[in-house]
């Protein structure tokens, strides 16, 4: 399969602290890749380098064959990014934000308007379409950012902690949506602390510890390698460290 995300010896240090060390990874098209690790392991730093927010100290990353540092604008056209605490313009309404996102990605206005109705219906935003974003709840904001991010049909989707603060209905909705999109060819790269989510939807799982990729494989491969009954046991075993429970 064609790799949509290629990470080549990626390293990032913040002075004396090395957040990511010599990371090499390849994620093919249509795969849901779950990136796990304890707090401070380097998950968010990795995702920030992959989306162009952080410049790597060494190494490179390619999205759909385009180097994110050398060809950032073209690479960003191929991807979507949903951070754990997304920034949204507080004085825009969901309608405004949707149109704005469409224009940023140069999606034809007809398509934006058509998609807006479908997405608002799907994510249950219809009743809030004219409410200022500053007055929306966290869950409703998350739904809006999902709707807007998927508008330009990205080929690669980065999601940092996708289920924070969401109700069970929205969690189900997001899980189904990610599965459906990956079946349609979208590559999903997500970081999470919810191991059940990785077990549930992840095609492959990577475990990062102290900036290094510690384990990589399908759920079955990891269970076999770690010798545990479930991902939680394997994760705790692989990331065990004196002083850490």
């Amino acid at each position, binding site marked *: 399969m064609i790799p949509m995300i290629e990470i080549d010896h990626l390293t990032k240090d913040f002075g004396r602290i090395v957040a990511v060390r010599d990371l090499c990874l390849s994620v093919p098209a249509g795969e849901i890749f779950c990136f796990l690790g304890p707090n401070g392991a380097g998950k968010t730093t990795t995702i920030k380098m992959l989306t162009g927010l952080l410049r790597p100290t060494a190494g490179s990353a390619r999205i759909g064959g385009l180097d994110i540092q050398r060809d950032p604008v073209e690479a960003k056209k191929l991807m979507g990014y949903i951070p754990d605490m997304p920034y949204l313009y507080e*004085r825009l309404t969901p309608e405004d934000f949707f149109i*704005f996102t469409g224009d940023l990605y140069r999606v034809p206005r007809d398509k934006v308007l058509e998609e807006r109705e479908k997405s608002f219906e799907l994510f249950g935003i219809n009743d809030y379409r004219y409410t200022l974003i500053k007055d929306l709840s966290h869950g409703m904001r998350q739904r809006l950012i999902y709707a807007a991010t998927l508008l330009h049909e990205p080929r690669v989707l980065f999601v940092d902690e996708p289920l924070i603060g969401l109700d069970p209905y929205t969690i189900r909705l997001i899980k189904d949506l990610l599965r459906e999109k990956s079946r349609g060819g979208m590559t999903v790269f997500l970081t999470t602390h919810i191991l059940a989510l990785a077990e549930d939807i992840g095609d492959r799982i990577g475990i990062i510890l102290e900036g290094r990729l510690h384990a990589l494989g399908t759920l079955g491969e990891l269970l076999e390698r770690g010798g545990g009954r479930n991902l939680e046991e394997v994760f705790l075993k692989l990331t065990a460290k004196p002083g850490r429970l």
Partner: protein
Amino acid sequence: MSASALYWKSRRQFVNGLKSLRYQSRFKVMFVCCFAAFCELGLLLLFMAGFRVLGMFGGIGGFIVGRLFSLFFLGIGMMLVVSGLVTSYATLFRSEEIPFLTTRPLSTSRIVVYKFMETVFFASWAFFFIIIPYVGAYAWHRGLPLHFALWTLLFSLPFLVLCCGLGAICVLLIVRWVPRGRAWRLLIIGAIAIVAAAAWAYTHRVYDPSADARLNLSRVIPGVMLASNILLPNTWVAEGIMSLTRGEWFRGMMMGGVLFSTAAVVFMGVEWIGSLLLYECWQRTLVGSSGRTGTGRFFARLEWLLRPLKPDTRAIVMKDVKTFFRDPIQWSQALVFFGLLGLYFANLGSFDYSILGAYWVNTMAFLNVFSVSAVVCSLGARFIYPQLSLEGQGFWILGLSPTSMRRIVLAKFGTALAGMLSVSVPLMMLSAAMLETAAAVRVTAVGLACVVSFAVCGLSIGLGAVFIDLKQRNPAAIVSGFGGTLNLVLTLGFMLAVILPFGVVFHVHATGRMVQHELWRGVFMATAWACVLCAGFTALPLVLGIRSLHRRDF
């Protein structure tokens, strides 16, 4: 399409903001609008009175008025550069919008241009509140035609872009290349001090008394030489507007052409330097300054000094002090504030008041008390009022802690008062000494500084608690709301109410219409009035604030 999307978004935000006014209290909106109109009218009348007084001096007055237009734009220009510096740092490096835009398919130069336009707007809109009444009063005084306003507007816009652009370029260069070590920082501060001292020495050169009137005038009004320098943009603006108003089209157009082309070059410079440096600068700010605060020893000493306080009160005070010093937006604005004060003091030292009569000496002394008190009110409005709101989403930590709201509010009040007194009292002493005022006036001025500081801190903390806005993270937005405006109105009103009686008593005495023992009786009564007012304006808002916090859900 993507660039226009950004401007479409800004327009929508503006329109939505206006629409949301419908859901605000009508009284609140009216109050803020009336206050703004009242300030504009007050400034207009003040400028008109100033021009009238200058007109009374005859020939030299006319000469000064002629130079004032250029001097005014020099002052505005300097403030705009500083405002552009602070605002562009906030828009480029503190805005949460930058990470959002960086992950979208936008080139760096587009982001820079968009954020620069935002900088120009935020850094300059308030200056129109000064420019409009000044220009109105000037036009009235000189009997200028209506199209003078049009030329002023046309020349002001490129001038804003030029000055803010210089500020933005400075920020990009500073963030990219200024080293972070303490020694380097001290070296740079030293270099800036040397440059400032050299500039000071240049503007205060001893001139040959036989030289022309402009040189002699420059001893009375510092900066008049600088303001008339043909190489500076403020001269192009002033000369251009006046030439076009007089119908000297060629000269006016030439000045306009120079101004527009220079502004365009600066704009292109911002785009070019920004596209080269923004990402690099941003990475530098992301790497962070944690562990490099450099003020550890200062905080340790302060904590040692605060040992007599109860641990929870000490914790709140220390948190506030640390937060203030670690927030570049807060302390950089404080630096700007004190920079402007430095200009005020530089001017005080230039005037020779001793040759004036008793009427003017007393008037100047109390105008100075008003000025310094107004500075105290502005400090209270800008830095103390937002303190409680800036606790933000973290207020629940204080709310859940085993500390009473009373103690939280009083700790904030104490911290604010200590800071305010350490600024207001030395300022008042220094300015009174520079004016060589009488001992009694000096003691009164320092006493008034204390009284105003108490009331300003009480009002700002108390009203800050009543109108607390935990969702807002921008201190400027907190200040410009209803509570902030009300606070400013009340503090300014209090200032007038306590200073005027003293001013009147000393004025009547200075003009020989009151004997010595009547003066002391008058001073005693004014002191009693000031103390009663101070107690009310300090205690009442604090009590209301504490009650309001008790009733709140967090």
